[in-house]
């Protein structure tokens, strides 16, 4: 498993990580979400051994990451801005990765060549941003990692290729038990692939749960009150309320049964529980941490 405990990382006095803790169970896909500047990339850089945390522990598979070449040989990472040598072709970079990762599989590399369909003799610099991302996946997956750490991995990929890439990752998780940590702003996509989610803000992990737990802890209700009731009763514990005509949309931090029971005392004409998307959970959870929640269309 991947485990970060009370990690602190400061840059010139600014704490990018301020006691962050997270735990990724082995074989799971963990989505790390948070606003810009929350500390997601810093956690990932600590997990890949680029940064050394100032405090706390950063461990993978029970071993400290820092300067642990043996462990890092089992970890492949795709940063948000993947680096390649200026004049390098895909094949050049493959040789480079193969020289470092003992588990690098040429068989996998050849198979993935058919999936990505990129000319491996072409200079990477001349490929589009999306194709460069594909190359990053191609090489990372060819390393046959036990742990895959992805920072904004599908940015720039077209929808078909996104699906393809996630399918490959999910295949590794299913067949090889690969543990995946992925940070993304694309919450809809995470919703489809993650089984665990952690929400970060201001250098801390505010909450981490399984997706089912998270969705069960918050509910969205569409309510139509009886004639004469135009406002939501003040005593209801509502995180957020909006109104379209006579229909009130309420977000409440409880499960659907509990919320319906509370509303029933007002004899509403209509109560309908709608599942929240991960994006909505993300926004309303962070709204509690003074995040500027606005009625934005996601």
């Amino acid at each position, binding site marked *: 498993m991947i485990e970060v405990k009370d990690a602190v990382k400061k840059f010139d006095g600014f704490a990018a990580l301020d006691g962050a803790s997270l735990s990724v169970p082995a074989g799971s896909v963990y989505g790390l979400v948070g606003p810009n500047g929350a500390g997601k990339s810093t956690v990932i850089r600590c997990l890949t051994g*680029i940064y050394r945390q100032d405090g706390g522990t950063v461990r993978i598979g029970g071993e400290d990451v820092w300067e642990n*070449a043996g462990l890092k040989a089992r*970890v492949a990472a795709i*940063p948000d801005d993947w680096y390649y040598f200026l004049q390098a072709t895909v094949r050049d970079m493959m*040789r480079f990765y193969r020289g*470092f990762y003992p588990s690098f599989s040429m068989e996998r590399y050849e198979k993935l060549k058919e999936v990505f369909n990129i000319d491996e003799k072409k200079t990477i610099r001349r490929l589009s941003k999306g194709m460069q991302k594909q190359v990053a996946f191609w090489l990372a997956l060819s390393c046959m990692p036990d742990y895959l750490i992805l920072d904004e991995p599908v940015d720039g990929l077209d929808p078909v290729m996104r699906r393809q890439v996630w399918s490959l990752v999910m295949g590794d998780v299913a067949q090889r038990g690969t543990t995946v940590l992925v940070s993304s702003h694309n919450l809809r996509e995470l919703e489809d692939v993650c089984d665990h989610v952690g929400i970060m803000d201001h250098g801390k992990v505010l909450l981490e749960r399984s997706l089912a737990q998270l969705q069960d802890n918050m509910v969205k209700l569409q309510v139509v009150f009886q004639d004469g009731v135009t406002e939501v009763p003040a005593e209801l514990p509502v995180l957020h309320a909006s109104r379209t005509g006579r229909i009130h949309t309420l977000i409440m931090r409880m499960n659907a049964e509990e919320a319906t029971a509370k509303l029933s005392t007002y004899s509403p004409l209509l109560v309908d529980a709608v599942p929240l998307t991960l994006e909505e959970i993300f926004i309303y959870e962070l709204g509690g941490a003074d995040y500027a929640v606005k009625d934005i269309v996601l």
Partner: protein
Amino acid sequence: MNWEVRTMRSKTSFFNGTLFRKNLTRFWPLWGGASFLGSLFPLAMLLQLMRYGEISAVGRNPMEFTEAYYIILSQVVPIVSLLYAILCAMVVWSYLYNARSVGLMHALPIRREGLFITNFLSGMAMQLIPYAVVGTLCVLVSLACGCLEPVGLLVTILGVLGESLFYFSSATLAAFVTGNIFALPAFYFLLHFLAVLLDWLVSTFATGFLFGLSGSYSGAVEWLSPTVYLINQVDVDRTYEEVFVRDAGSVYGGYTDSVLSAVRLENVWLIGVYALAGVVLLALAYALYRRRRSESAGDVVAVMWMKPVFRFGLAGLAALLGGQLLYTLFWEQFQSGWYYGTLPMLVCMIVAGVIGYYIASMLLAKALRVFRGSWKGVALVAVGCAVLCGVLHFDVLGVSARVPEISEVRQVSLYTADNSYEFYPGEEDELLEQVRQVHQAIAADADYIIQEQNTCNWYSRGMGTTSFHVTYTLSNGLTVSRNYLLPMARDRMAQEGTYDHLLDQLVNSDAMKAKRIHVNDSRYTVNSGYLYLDKRNESLDLNSREAAAVLEAVGRDAAAGTWGTYDWFGSGNGGDYAMNLELRFTYPSEYGDGIAYDGITITVRPGMDSTVSCLKDLGLITDEDLVTYGELNPENYNDAELEWVDPEAYVFYDPERAVDLPAGAAAVTVG
């Protein structure tokens, strides 16, 4: 999997072949281009040898090739390595200066020491490949000429290896001090030349404050600037043998020629010392890498504790350099006397120092807004400037008054009264003590001399002037050098205890007269001379035998009191014979090829019977040549006191010493 991992870790901890190969293939234009440029020189040499048909010449001297190798090793390799090492360092360590590349390299399954060693070896390979190519071509050329000399070749190879190691190690250290690729060469060259730069700056600055201090460079810490030190210290020592070359075409059956019989590289051990220093620098660089934060990519200074050093160091350099520049621009024209005005210099230093402080702050912060809360640093810079100016103005360290004890010195060089002298403790302690007493008297009379220097009308007041430049070489190798321009007054010369009196007593003593012509000094050998006769307008060269005879005759005249008394007040040469006699000496030296040269001009006057008679006996002069300048050119010597007047020149007019000026001479009244 675990077994695989452990095996891999032990295998790849210290070196990664993939990274090594990648570095060489990525940056081949650098070492390929350098190899190509370097190989042009041996190829040009080969063509030249072929052109003159010497490629197959039998009996060509292998020492000439060794000499060429050594010259290149001592004079060319330090400069080439200095420049090329930084280029190699800039490419192999370039990944440290970009957040993306440092992310890739540090995320790879290799420890920092593995990256360090692999990249260092890649850089060293890039550094050595061009030398190997050029060296191989040179060896082939030597073999083609049948002149391969293995000892010279081995010394050269070891020297190149040592210098390459040192320079690339120092470039590596500089690479880990900074996080910015543009700052890397700046730090590197600063590291290599800071010592000589500071020496020059401080010496120049102190000379503007302290009485008698001379020279803009002391060289005391030159060893900290290895390129300068190696070029100055490592030198080629050649030994020649005279051989008779048979030549049937010559009337003598041949001729004598000098043949290079041995070549030695002096102080070559210094390269070894610097190579060891390179190992130490490398260890320091590795220690910095262990602590280096990947996030420092882009920072001008990557090491936290060096940031204040950089900030205040740059401020200090700016204060010294910029302060003197500002002073020269804005205040020097108002300066009275020879020395800096302390207050204006302080103001200039503070202005330049504060500018330097803010530039350093901006570079560190990578921002222009660095003014808030900076008053403490600015105040510290101002206080530092004030302390430095105060220390120099009041000569707190007693530099001006310092006269080394005889027991401290190894050698003393003196230039005064138009002559140079060397003194050695244990041989001439009495004279040496007299030199010290003159020096002490000068230091004690500093206020008087400075005041006189500011008036600048010595000649119109009947005074003379002389230089007193003394250099004490201390037992520890350091030197104390002072240079004074002294006004010489007749009245003071009569007063015991004044420097005028003491200097006259010293210079005109019999011992100094003898010393001037190196009588009884086995170190000096008179080897030639030169005589110019004005009347005949003819130059004559004296061989060593003739020069020795003349020297002996001058010695006899000195003993008789007819030669050697120095005229402090320039009573002119109208009474001297119209001839110029020079004698040249050689003596052993620690520097260069071990031989130094000295010369003395002998003023021949009526009464110097021994010298005149010797010159006659040698057939160099006749009685007709014994005319004085006054007799030869009477128009130039029409007054007893103002013997020679250049009609083109201005002459100071002093009513008390009024003389009839020659027609055409302009008179200037001195206020």
